[in-house]
C-alpha cells in the first residue's frame, strides 16, 4: 500500500517536474522541424497561386564577402570544431533580411563569396573584383591584409566592412573614411571589461600576456584601460610555454601564478593557446577574465536578450551551429548597408558612406539599443557583452559611466583621443 502511494506521488512529481523545466534554446531538431514546416507552407502557398508583395526593382546591389584560406592552427580544445564557413551564414541571413525589406521598396541584393587561396595574391584578386564593378565588400581579414588592401589605388571608390580585425591602429593612425569596423576594437573590449571589474571592486590585477602580436596589442589596451579607470596591475607575466599543456597544466600553472596578492587574473590570449589552462589552476583561488573565463565580446551563444533569441534560432536553423562573432559582424555589416540603402534610397558609394557616418543612421542589432558608427573613425558603436561560457554576466557600458553624446562612447577611444584623420 505504502509503496503504491510512493509510486503515485513519484510519478505525479515527475510529471510536474517535467512541466517546470525552463524554456531553453530550441534543439537543432526542433529548428529543422520548423524549417521543414516552412518549406511545406511555402509549397502550399505556391499551390494557392498567391504571390508575395513585390515592388518593381529599381536598385540592384551586389556585395562581395572575402575570406582567406588559412593554415589550421593547433587546437587547444577537443570540444570546438574548426569552423570553415565563418561569416557565410551571417551574410546569408542579412541578405535575406535585406531582400525582405527590398521586396517592399524595390531593392534587390546579391552576395558573392570569395575565398582567397594561400597561393593567390590578395590584392590581385581584390582588384579583379573592383574592376568587375563591385562596390561593397565584407572582408574577413586580419590587420596586415587590411593594410595591404589600402594600397590598392581604386579602393577609395568602394566601401569595405572589416568583420574580423580588432586592431586599434585600423581605427586610428591607419584609418580610412571608406573602411568601416564592425568588431569592437581591443580598447573597446578592454574598457568594457575594466568597467565591470571596477564595479566589482576587483582592482588589483595579475596580467598574463600570450606570445602573439595580437596578444600584446590586447594586453596594451588592457594596460591603458587600467590606467584610465585607476586599476593597479600588481604583476605582469608573459606566457611563453610552447608545449601542449593538456596533461601537465596542473603542475605548471600553479607555479606560474604564484605571485603577489591580486584580485583577478586578466589574460590576453587571442588564439586560445593557453588561457583555458589557467582557469581553476591558479595558485590563489582567483577568477580568470579577458580572452578566457569572463570574456568581453560582441556576440555569444548565451545572449538571449533584446530579441537575440530570434537571431540565434534563425542562425542555427540555417547553419546547424552557433553564431560566432565574425558571423554576427558579417550580419551587422550587410544589414547596415541594407538599412542605409533603404533609407537613403540610393546605393551611390559616396551617399552610402555619408549616411553610414551620419547621426541619421541607426540599426537594431539585438543589443537593446541602436548601433551606429562613430563619425570620426567608422567604428561601430555598440554595447559589449560580458559572457562566461554558460551565462551572460553583464553588459557594458556599466551604469554610471556617462557621456554627453552616447554612453557607448565611454568604451574605447573617444573623439578627443582618436588619432584618425579622415
Amino acid at each position: 500500500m505504502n509503496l503504491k502511494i510512493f509510486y503515485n506521488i513519484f510519478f505525479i512529481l515527475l510529471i510536474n517536474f517535467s512541466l517546470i523545466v525552463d524554456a531553453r534554446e530550441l534543439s537543432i531538431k526542433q529548428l529543422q522541424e520548423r524549417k521543414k514546416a516552412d518549406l511545406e507552407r511555402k509549397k502550399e502557398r505556391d499551390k494557392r497561386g498567391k504571390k508575395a508583395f513585390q515592388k518593381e526593382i529599381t536598385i540592384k546591389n551586389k556585395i562581395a564577402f572575402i575570406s582567406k584560406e588559412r593554415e589550421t592552427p593547433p587546437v587547444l580544445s577537443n570540444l570546438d570544431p574548426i569552423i570553415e564557413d565563418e561569416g557565410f551564414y551571417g551574410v546569408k541571413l542579412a541578405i535575406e533580411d535585406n531582400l525582405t525589406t527590398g521586396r517592399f521598396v524595390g531593392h534587390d541584393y546579391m552576395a558573392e563569396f570569395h575565398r582567397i587561396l594561400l597561393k593567390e595574391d590578395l590584392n590581385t584578386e581584390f582588384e579583379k573584383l573592383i574592376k568587375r564593378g563591385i562596390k561593397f565588400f565584407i572582408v574577413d581579414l586580419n590587420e596586415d591584409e587590411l593594410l595591404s588592401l589600402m594600397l590598392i589605388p581604386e579602393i577609395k571608390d568602394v566601401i569595405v566592412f572589416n568583420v574580423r580585425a580588432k586592431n586599434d591602429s585600423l581605427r586610428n593612425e591607419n584609418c580610412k573614411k571608406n573602411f568601416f569596423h564592425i568588431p569592437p576594437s581591443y580598447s573597446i573590449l578592454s574598457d568594457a571589461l575594466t568597467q565591470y571589474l571596477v564595479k566589482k571592486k576587483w582592482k588589483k590585477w595579475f596580467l598574463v600576456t600570450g606570445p602573439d602580436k595580437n596578444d600584446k596589442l590586447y594586453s596594451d589596451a588592457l594596460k591603458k584601460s587600467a590606467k584610465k579607470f585607476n586599476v593597479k596591475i600588481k604583476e605582469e607575466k608573459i606566457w611563453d610555454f610552447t608545449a601542449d599543456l593538456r596533461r601537465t597544466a596542473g603542475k605548471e600553472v600553479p607555479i606560474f601564478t604564484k605571485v603577489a596578492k591580486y584580485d583577478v587574473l586578466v589574460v590576453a590570449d587571442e588564439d586560445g593557446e593557453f588561457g583555458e589552462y589557467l582557469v581553476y589552476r591558479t595558485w590563489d583561488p582567483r577568477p580568470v577574465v579577458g580572452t578566457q573565463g569572463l570574456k568581453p565580446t560582441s556576440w555569444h551563444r548565451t545572449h538571449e536578450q533584446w530579441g537575440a533569441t530570434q537571431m540565434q534560432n534563425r542562425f542555427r536553423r540555417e547553419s546547424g551551429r552557433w553564431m560566432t562573432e565574425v558571423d554576427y559582424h558579417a550580419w551587422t555589416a550587410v544589414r547596415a548597408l541594407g538599412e542605409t540603402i533603404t533609407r537613403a534610397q540610393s546605393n551611390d558609394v559616396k551617399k552610402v558612406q555619408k549616411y553610414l557616418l551620419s547621426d541619421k543612421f541607426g540599426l537594431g542589432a539585438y543589443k537593446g539599443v541602436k548601433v551606429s558608427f562613430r563619425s570620426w573613425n567608422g567604428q561601430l558603436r555598440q554595447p559589449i557583452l560580458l559572457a562566461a561560457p554558460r551565462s551572460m554576466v553583464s553588459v557594458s557600458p556599466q551604469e554610471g559611466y556617462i557621456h554627453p553624446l552616447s554612453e557607448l562612447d565611454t568604451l574605447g577611444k573617444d573623439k578627443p583621443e582618436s588619432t584618425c584623420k579622415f
Partner: protein
Amino acid sequence: MMRNFIFLIAFCLTNSLSSVKANLAYITNEKDNTVSVIDIKKKKVVNTVKVGQRPRGIIMSNDGKLVLICASDDDRVEVREAETLKLKYLLPSGPDPELFIFSPKNDVLYIANEDDAMVTVVDMKDKMIIDDIPVGVEPEGMGLTNNGKILVNTSETTNMAHFIDTETLEIVENVLVDARPRVAMFTPDDGEVWVSAEIGGTVKVINPNSKEVTHTIGFEIPGVNEESIQPVGVRHTKDGKYTFVALGPANRIAVVDQKTKELIKYLLVGQRVWQLALTPDEKTLLSTNGVSNDVSIINVKKLKVEKSVKVGRFPWGVVISPN
C-alpha cells in the same frame, strides 16, 4: 515525503481558486511558462497556471470565455477556458507565434510568426490555417480597424508597418517607420494608427487612408538617457483623451494627449515595461514590467500608479477580461 504532500496539496488548491470571474487580468510569464491571474480589485495574484513554452501574446474572446496564448517555443496557440484556464484545444499557428489579434466577430485569428516573416490566418470554426501572408522580418505588432477590414502588421527587422486588406489577405501598402517597430494600434475612431519603434525611440502616427506619417512623437525624460527610451505597448482610451505608451527600460509609461500628441505626464512603473491593458471601464491600466517581474496597476483618472503586483519571471503580455 511529507513536504511533497504539502506541495501537492498547495498545487491543487491554487488550481481551484479561480472561480471569481470579473475583473481578472491574465499575464503571460515568458521565462516561467506560466500565466498569472490577477484580481484587479483585490490587486493580487489569485492563480498561477502552467502553460506552453515561452508564452508571450495573450488575448481573450469578446464573450470573455476563452483565453488565447501564443506558446512561442511550442509553435502553437493554446485556447483555454477563461474561468479555469484549462486547456480546451490547440490551434495551428505556424512557427514561433508572438502576437495575434481577433477579427471583430472572433471568427478569424491573425497571428504574427516572429521566426518566420509571416502572418498566419486561422479560421476559428475549422481551426485551420486558411492563409499566410509573407511580411517583413520578425513580424510582431498587430492592429485592426473596428470593422476588421484593415490589418496592420509591424516587422521588427524590416522596420515597416504592412497594411493588409483582410478580404484579399494581400498587402496593399508598406510604410517605413523607425527601428524595431513593436506595436500597432488604431485609434478608437480608426482615424489613425500609432506604431511604436523600440530602438528608434519614437511613435509614428500614420493616416490609414493616405498611408502617410502625420506625426512622430519623441520622448525626453530628464535624467534618463535617450537610448533607454524604448516605446513598446500602446493603448488608447475610447474617449479620445489619452494614449499610454510603455517606454521599456526607461521604466515609465508616457501619457500622451491623443488629439494634440503632446506629452502630459510620465508614470514611473517597474523595470522594462512592455505591454499594457485597460479595464473595460477604462478606469485602470495595467503594465507588465519584465525585469522587475511585476505588474503595475495604474489609476487612469488620477494618472497615478497605485500598486505593483509580483508575478512570474519576465511578465510579457497582459489581457483583461471584457466582463
